């Protein structure tokens, strides 16, 4: 268990360093893919089986493909330059490091009430299905409406005015 935790946290740390530092957008996208792999591994370590598989479907297969196609489409069609310049502002470094140090201090100084009886994690899918239709029915339907709004909005927004009406 410790080995898997070390492996996935190393994967997440190195891949987020890749997202930060790569200038080429496609390289940064592949690093983001590995970050999502690491996050899936973390979900599995924490016993969240349904959330891990949902992460694979939604983030790995959906979001990455959306990013990839938009990176490919939003280049100039005549001279395809993959290199997007990255301006390393000292401000960004200072703010991020300061924020991280504050977070480390806060996390280490709060006495978290970790529950002492850590049983083996149980399968969560049935319980999530129960909760989605009883306690979380309002967010569930709201997210459904949100998806429809996003689909209709994207199609309307990207339609060109000079097209055949």
């Amino acid at each position, binding site marked *: 268990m410790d080995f898997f935790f070390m492996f996935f946290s190393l994967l997440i740390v190195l891949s987020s360093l890749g997202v930060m530092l790569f200038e080429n957008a496609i390289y940064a996208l592949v690093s983001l893919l590995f970050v*999502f792999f690491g996050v899936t591994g973390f979900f599995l370590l924490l016993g969240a089986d349904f959330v891990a598989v949902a992460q694979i479907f939604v983030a790995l297969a959906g979001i990455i493909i959306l990013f990839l196609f938009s990176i490919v489409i939003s280049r100039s069609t005549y001279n395809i330059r993959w290199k997007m310049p990255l301006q390393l502002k000292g401000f960004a470094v200072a703010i991020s490091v300061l924020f991280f140090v504050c977070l480390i201090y806060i996390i280490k100084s709060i006495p978290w009430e970790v529950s002492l009886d850590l049983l083996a994690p149980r399968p969560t899918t049935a319980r*999530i299905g129960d909760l989605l239709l009883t306690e979380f029915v309002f967010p569930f339907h709201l997210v459904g409406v949100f998806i429809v709004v996003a689909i209709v909005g994207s199609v309307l927004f990207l339609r060109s005015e000079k097209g055949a009406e």
Partner: protein
Amino acid sequence: MFNLINMLLVAAFLFSAGMFVVFSRRDSIGILMGVQLFLSSSAINFVAFSRFVTRQIEGHMVALFILIVAAIQVSLFLAIVLRVYKERKTSDIDEIQDLRE
């Protein structure tokens, strides 16, 4: 090694990495990658608390909704970016600064 505090520290690193990406990248799609790092770290936090502190499953529900809303947000944001790219022929945020038509 596998306890709550180390999980929270990795999520905090992801969050500050996302913050650095949002502040230092010049293209709109790179900024959205930083926002994805924000959302992933929040989801890890929720599921870690659900496993270690409360033994309930509401943390998993919130992580699910975070995932879904992140995907919707990505698609809408990319629609906007592609539309702006069609008009302005660039996706550099330093050049897309005014809201004129």
